[in-house]
């Protein structure tokens, strides 16, 4: 399918593809095994200017939008959904600043992120608060010109590796979700610690840790927007970042399909390649069709976000929901095409299935996405009457 990308978008896609093929593919299995953070790829991405593609030119970026971010996330994820998170997780951590930061905050943080000098992370999830953001227990107490943060964030992507953390904490617990505020916290601020690195099913090269705040003094200048805006900052961030998760899922699915098609042509059973069996052909045809449908939805959503449309929650959730469900289904089928070999870790395909699963869970489970979609449907219906 031709998505009529412009010249710069094609350039970005080809460059990300070259990096995925030449630099990430050869090392994906190694990092999956060692569970280390692939700094060598962060370096390549930063030297190639890719970290800055969705950041405005005035802050040192290339001035692209969510579509450009998605194109890169997709291409990198074709080679490794985990290593791609160094990029995509940084985008998630950067959106609060991009969307709601003031000029001074943007000037202070965005240029280093755009250059790839600093990786970013977004901290909202806690032990008892994931999809239910109102249950956040981390507090930010005002103390003169500072806020004092206390609490523990859990399962934070890029934690420990990132320099910049955007954190949602309660400035007024009595107000529930309306009492949440967003802050920018530097890694080197006193009172920032990290828990042990989590061992995960998939995306194992991505670093996932607790971020622990103990009387962490954050200057007032690092409050994003106003007190009480934290929940809105988080929701709008997700509206922008969910197409990125969808693109990651899309890349994982596409990467798995390519491996499966290639394998089916080489694997001979009953005297012929298994690609000549209709049972296998139909599986691959379904996989490809679902992926293309997902891509069409993801790109259309990204373009809608970039157009400046105001209400994007429904579409953003649809893209994330659909693409991640497709990724799960396609990667399961890809392992099936590989048969017994597919189950062996010596072959690359089982990793895609493990990596796909997280896309149905994080940045809001797919059940929560359905809630968002349904809530918007009902709201629209009421408005029409």
């Amino acid at each position, binding site marked *: 399918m031709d998505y009529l990308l412009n010249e710069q978008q094609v350039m970005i896609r080809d*460059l990300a593809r070259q*990096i995925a093929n030449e630099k990430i593919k050869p090392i994906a299995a190694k990092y999956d095994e060692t569970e280390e953070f692939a700094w060598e790829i962060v370096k390549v991405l930063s030297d190639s200017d890719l970290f800055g593609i969705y950041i405005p030119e005035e802050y040192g970026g290339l001035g692209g939008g969510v579509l450009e971010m998605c194109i890169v996330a997709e291409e990198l994820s074709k080679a490794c959904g985990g290593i791609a998170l160094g990029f995509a997780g940084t985008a998630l951590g950067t959106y609060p600043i991009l969307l709601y930061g003031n000029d001074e905050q943007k000037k202070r943080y965005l240029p280093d992120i755009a250059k790839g000098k600093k990786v970013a992370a977004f901290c909202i999830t806690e032990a008892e608060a994931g999809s239910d953001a109102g249950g956040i227990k981390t507090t930010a107490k005002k103390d003169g010109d500072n806020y004092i943060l206390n609490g523990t964030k859990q399962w934070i992507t890029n934690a420990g590796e990132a320099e910049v953390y955007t954190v949602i904490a309660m400035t007024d617990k009595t107000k529930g979700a309306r009492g949440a505020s967003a802050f920018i916290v530097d890694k080197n601020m006193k009172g920032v610690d990290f828990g042990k690195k989590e061992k995960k099913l998939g995306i194992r090269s991505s670093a996932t840790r607790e971020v622990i705040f103990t009387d962490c003094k954050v200057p007032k200048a690092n409050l994003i927007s106003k007190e009480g805006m934290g929940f809105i900052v988080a929701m709008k961030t997700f509206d922008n970042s969910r197409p990125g998760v969808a693109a990651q899922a899309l890349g994982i699915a596409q990467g798995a399909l390519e491996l499966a098609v290639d394998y089916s042509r080489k694997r001979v059973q009953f005297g012929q390649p298994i690609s000549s069996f209709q049972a296998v052909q139909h599986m691959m045809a379904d996989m490809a069709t679902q992926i293309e449908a997902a891509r069409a939805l993801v790109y259309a959503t990204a373009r809608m976000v970039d157009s400046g449309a105001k209400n994007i929650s429904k579409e953003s959730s649809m893209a994330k929901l659909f693409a991640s469900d497709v990724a799960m289904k396609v990667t399961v089928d890809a392992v099936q095409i590989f048969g017994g070999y597919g189950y062996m870790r010596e072959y690359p395909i089982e990793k895609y299935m493990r990596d796909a699963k997280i896309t149905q869970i994080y940045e809001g489970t797919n059940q929560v996405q359905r809630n968002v979609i349904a809530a918007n449907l009902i709201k629209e219906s009421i408005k029409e009457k």
Partner: protein
Amino acid sequence: MNIVVCIKQVPNTTDVKIDPVTNTLIRDGVESVINPFDAYAIEEGVRLKERFGGKVTVVTMGPPQAENALKEAISLGCDEAVLVSDRKFAGSDTWATSYTLSCAIKKIGVFDVIICGKQASDGDTAQVGPGISTHLDIPQVTYVKKIEDISNSKAKVERMTEEGYDIVETPLPCLFTVVKEINSPRIPSLKGMMKAKSAKIAKWNAEDIDADPKNLGLEGSPTRVVKIFTPPPRKGGEMLKGDAAEIAEKLGELLKDIIL
């Protein structure tokens, strides 16, 4: 420091076809790429600029479409590019080519280091780099695998040999040909690619570079190609079976057949 990198566009295939009449390469219909060894030369030039400052000028002699190779070099960090192109250059052998390139480099003027790939993947002669240094009358070090240092108008480099490496010190200006062990070429940057898109490539013909016409092209080339062919593939070996005495006897018979 002023660095000049010489590159060549080559067909992107190992299976090059040869015109049976002229005994030269058929380039039509084959995608052209930067000669793989020249990619290391570009990377090393850009790294020298990053280490010591200065600028990198990339030069190629070739048809108009060689401009693409120069733009790619700019996307990888080279600052300026020169395409030396003229119908009069057609049919140049390595002597005429290195003469032509040396004229272009003279026109560029100031240079401290010239870097070439050790050889091109199509012709495989490894003669143009050394040829340029000869025409310019400057020192050359071939098969360089590491540039240790450049200071006080001197360069200290490691030159690969079959058994190890030599450490060579040479005054500047000088010419290096580099091997693939020297670095790992980078991926272009987006800003580099955008710069390349709008980059102005200087185009020089035979007159521009003040070249002596009798040294150019087929006429200026002393080389006469009698025949180019692909050597037949080596046949597999034969394993002799049996005990030591039997094998020795069979081997003796075989040797006799070959020698006598």
